[in-house]
């Protein structure tokens, strides 16, 4: 109990520092620390799956995106007109926010005590899904439509990012070509860490059906490994117009749709799995989805195409 209070206070302290820090770069570093502490809080809330996702995606990959942006925008000139708002507005904002926090805290305290829960129903129907991990059962069986639409949302964000490409660069290579001296520490570390990371990513994806883990966490780790290899200059992003790249990006949702529609014939409805080999079908969906999400996350971090392939 004392540990929780301490952790909560630490999280709030880091969050205050993230808001109060003057320099954006420092604020982003604070945010990454905030994300990792939040992952610890998720472990304390008995949600290891979410802790993994928060650490890998919430603070890791988001941190990389924000860090990349803050270094690029470091010398942006702040025109006088947009200086920090006056003390009056800050005071008003502070009052408003304390009221919002207090209201929310009051609501949290007054939540009903025999807290309504769907855990018993989720547990009762687990046998039909053939899965051991309840969270994966919710993601892939009970609310499979949300997961399906969410992979499409990720793909749309990537398409939105690509739509920002200046016209001459369409079909080019996303992001900058990073170079590092071949016998430097980074290249050595990348060559050693990337294979291990890919192994860990596949393990976390595979173990997801019975223990904490799953496709999103595994995909994030695989994407992180690709980003590390790209940063060390070992690998370069493929041109955006390549057909095979688009196929990989679309493979996840496409397979999810096909198996979902096959549910009409095999089981009794869209995204329903026949009980006999529900787990097999779910794994058959998860493999392409993990690949698609890993590719999408990596390309989201790489950014819109900025250079043409040198034929």
């Amino acid at each position, binding site marked *: 109990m004392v540990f929780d209070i301490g952790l909560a206070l630490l999280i709030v302290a880091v969050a205050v520092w993230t808001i109060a820090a003057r320099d954006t770069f420092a604020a982003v570093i604070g945010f990454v620390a905030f994300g990792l502490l939040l992952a610890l809080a998720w472990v304390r809330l008995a949600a290891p799956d979410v802790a993994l996702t928060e650490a890998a995606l919430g603070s890791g990959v988001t941190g990389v995106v924000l860090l990349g942006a803050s*270094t690029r925008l470091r010398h942006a000139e702040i025109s006088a007109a947009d200086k920090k708002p006056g003390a009056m507005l800050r005071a008003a904002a502070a009052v408003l926010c304390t009221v919002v926090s207090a209201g929310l805290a009051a609501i949290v305290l007054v939540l009903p005590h025999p807290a309504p829960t769907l855990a018993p129903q989720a547990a009762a129907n687990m046998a039909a899904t053939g899965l051991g991990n309840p969270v994966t059962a919710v993601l892939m069986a009970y609310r499979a439509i949300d997961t399906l639409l969410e992979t499409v949302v990720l793909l749309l964000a990537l398409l939105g990012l690509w739509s920002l490409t200046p016209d001459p660069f369409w079909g080019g290579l996303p992001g900058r070509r990073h170079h590092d001296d071949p016998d*430097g*520490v*980074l290249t050595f*570390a*990348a060559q050693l*860490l990337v294979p*291990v990371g890919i192994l860990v990513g596949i393990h976390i994806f595979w173990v997801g059906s019975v223990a904490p883990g799953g496709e999103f966490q595994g995909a994030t780790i695989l994407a992180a490994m690709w980003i*590390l290899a790209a*940063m060390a200059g070992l690998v370069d992003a493929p041109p955006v117009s390549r057909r095979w790249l688009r196929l990989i990006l679309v493979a996840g949702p496409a397979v999810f749709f096909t198996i979902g529609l096959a549910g009409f014939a095999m089981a009794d409805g869209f995204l329903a799995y026949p009980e006999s080999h529900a787990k097999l079908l779910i794994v058959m969906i998860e493999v392409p989805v993990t690949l698609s999400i890993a590719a999408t996350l990596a390309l989201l971090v790489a950014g819109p195409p900025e250079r043409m392939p040198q034929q």
Partner: protein
Amino acid sequence: MSLALDLLTILAVSAGVFFFLAGTVGLLRFPDALSRLHALTKADNLGLGLVVLGLVFQEERLFAALKLITVWLLTLLAGATVTRLIARNARPAGPRG
């Protein structure tokens, strides 16, 4: 037997904590980014190693102990990579880099 193990654990973990403390002091006291990085990576990696050692004594299952040690090795590698990236950013035109 378990008393000795507990004693070893307490010793190792407290040594580890001491090194973490040293690293943090280094972070606060040292003038520029590079020396801070130096202090942090040295002290914290060693500190983590000792804490992991302390935990290994408590661990019955060999597989879990090996997992703990791999965690430490991965942190070493990750630490080295991140330090290299920050150093590259902090002083791009280094003497040799």
